[in-house]
């Protein structure tokens, strides 16, 4: 979708390059995080995409179209733009702010009004309350939401976001990050997101481009970056606890095992046979009338001669498919158990995760780690 080819930006000719021979390919529908210390060229890289800054040499393509050939105004109208200071127009109402690009595009009034209300609702701001307020009447987090709404107004396929949550307190920032990720699941934009915070990059990114002194140091998924930092510099950006950070990236649904079930009327031997046949250690026990009763595991079946009903253990507290491994681990600690069930909607059990699964998931990803082994 967006492709940089040997892009160089020099602000002054004798200067060293602010962006140095950058090759980068950003896929459609992905969030690409540009991360690195202040002054490494992230903003410059981003602004070259909408031609706020002109590349000194090299080419940038959007949908295989060389942007040099596109009129900057036309180009920008189809690229959402969000910045850290929001840049909201202080003399205009929230509705007028959000309507900026639709107005430039000449939409009719009714369509604009509907779109503004729709976006306010999407951003969890009640249109009745906020439509006619001025930016100064809003909190920092609300202003940033309006900034995002304004960028989304004409539904551009691409969004550029320069440290959009950088000026917010940690709690608000976390909230807006979560909201934005949920939103992105719905809208699937191609997003270039600048941050100096590696944790934000790991949390938000489908891909991460690590930059240093204008050069691309490493490009990959958060997982790849965490597991195989290209060099000392990237490791340092990641900070300690690489494995723990990976646990934040992986969701239960990625590693959970499916779990068979068996009717409570069956004998222990039959349950055992099924376990051996499927090669699993746990099995759900159900009843035609009452539904899910609980579960039994391999160890209890091997040591006892009893009915399934007597060996039943309760399912207990569960996690959801979207719970991260880190939260799952905390859950296990707080429950004092080595297994936890994953349940989706309406109390159905979808799978199971054990402590070993967690450790394996992390160690598979992290070859450098020896805590796990």
């Amino acid at each position, binding site marked *: 979708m967006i492709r940089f080819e040997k892009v160089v930006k020099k602000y002054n000719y004798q200067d060293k390059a602010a962006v140095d021979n950058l090759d980068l390919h950003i896929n459609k529908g992905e969030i690409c995080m540009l991360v690195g210390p202040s002054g490494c060229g992230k903003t410059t890289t981003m602004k070259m995409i909408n031609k706020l800054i002109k590349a000194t040499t090299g080419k940038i393509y959007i949908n295989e179209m060389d942007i040099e050939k596109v009129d900057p105004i036309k180009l920008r109208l189809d690229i959402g*733009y969000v910045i850290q*200071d929001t*840049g909201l127009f202080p*003399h205009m109402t929230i509705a007028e702010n959000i309507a900026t690009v639709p107005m430039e595009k000449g939409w009719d009034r009714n369509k604009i009004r509907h779109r503004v209300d729709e976006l306010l609702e999407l951003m969890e701001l009640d249109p009745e309350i906020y439509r006619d307020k001025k930016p100064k009447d809003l909190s920092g987090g609300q202003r940033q939401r309006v900034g995002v709404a304004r960028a989304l107004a004409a539904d551009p396929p691409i969004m550029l976001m320069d440290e959009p949550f950088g000026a917010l307190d940690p709690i608000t920032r976390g909230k807006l990050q979560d909201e934005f990720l949920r939103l992105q699941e719905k809208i699937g934009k191609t997003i270039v997101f600048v941050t100096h915070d590696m944790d934000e990059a790991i949390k938000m990114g489908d891909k991460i481009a690590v930059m240093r002194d204008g050069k691309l140091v490493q490009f990959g998924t958060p997982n790849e970056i965490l597991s195989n930092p290209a060099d000392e510099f990237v490791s340092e950006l990641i900070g300690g606890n690489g494995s723990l950070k990976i646990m934040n990236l992986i969701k239960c649904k990625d590693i959970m095992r499916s779990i068979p079930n068996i009717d409570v009327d069956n004998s222990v031997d039959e349950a055992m046979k099924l376990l051996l046949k499927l090669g699993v250690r746990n099995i759900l026990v159900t009843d035609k009338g009452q539904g899910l009763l609980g579960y039994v595991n391999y160890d209890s079946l091997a040591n006892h001669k009893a009915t399934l009903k007597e060996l039943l253990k309760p399912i207990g507290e569960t996690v959801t498919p979207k719970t991260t491994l880190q939260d799952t681990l905390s859950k296990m600690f707080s429950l004092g158990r080595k297994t936890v069930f994953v349940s989706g909607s309406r109390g159905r059990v979808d799978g199971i995760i054990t402590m070993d699964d967690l450790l394996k998931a992390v160690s598979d990803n992290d070859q450098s780690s020896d805590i796990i082994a």
Partner: protein
Amino acid sequence: MTKAQTSSLRLRDVLSILFIISIGVAFSIYVVQYPQDRIVERFISYSKIINAILQHLYIVAISSALALLTSVPLGIILTRPRFKKYSTKVLTVVNIGQTIPSLAIVALFVGFLGIGSKTAILALWIYSLLPILNNTLVGILSVEPSVIEAARGMGMPTKRILYKIELPLALPIIIAGIRTAVTINIGTAILAAFVGGGGLGDLIISGNNVSRWQILMLGATLPALMAILADIVFGVVERRTII
């Protein structure tokens, strides 16, 4: 600011305006109805006062309008990227220019334009260019760069950024400049009488010539009241344009 506060403020402004007008009217009536002697009676009349006021206003209005029409565009040009580097230098020159006494400028213009209201208008125009230009520059330059960047990044053309963002945001400051210019002009326009331009300064000259304090005082008081009036009115406009 709550609605109650703004409306009470407006009431205060209206009362002040009425008060100032009634002082001016009362003083004029007093001087005309109760002339001290035949000389005063011969030199002052309602139509003379009204004529002087209208002439005064004419000089002020034309010179201020000319200043507005030159300073604002000049200010806009000087804040465009190509000329921005000169804007601080111009501001310095402008500020030095404002320290030259108005009388000096009027005298200078008599030198090559002769006497008459044209000279007065030109002198006042030059003199009031400065506060408006100053405030136009300051107003536009003080617009948050992030606001302009956002507008550019979203695809607003430069001209629309000027009309929709920069000028509206600079407007209160520009109006404050106009307020200063007009207020000063009303006072300085007294000097027009000394170069044969007419206006309320004529009353001062006549009053002085015939040694009658009422006429002289009227010529001094009316411009002062008009200046205060202009200050209040433009103050209201200025406040209404602030976000």
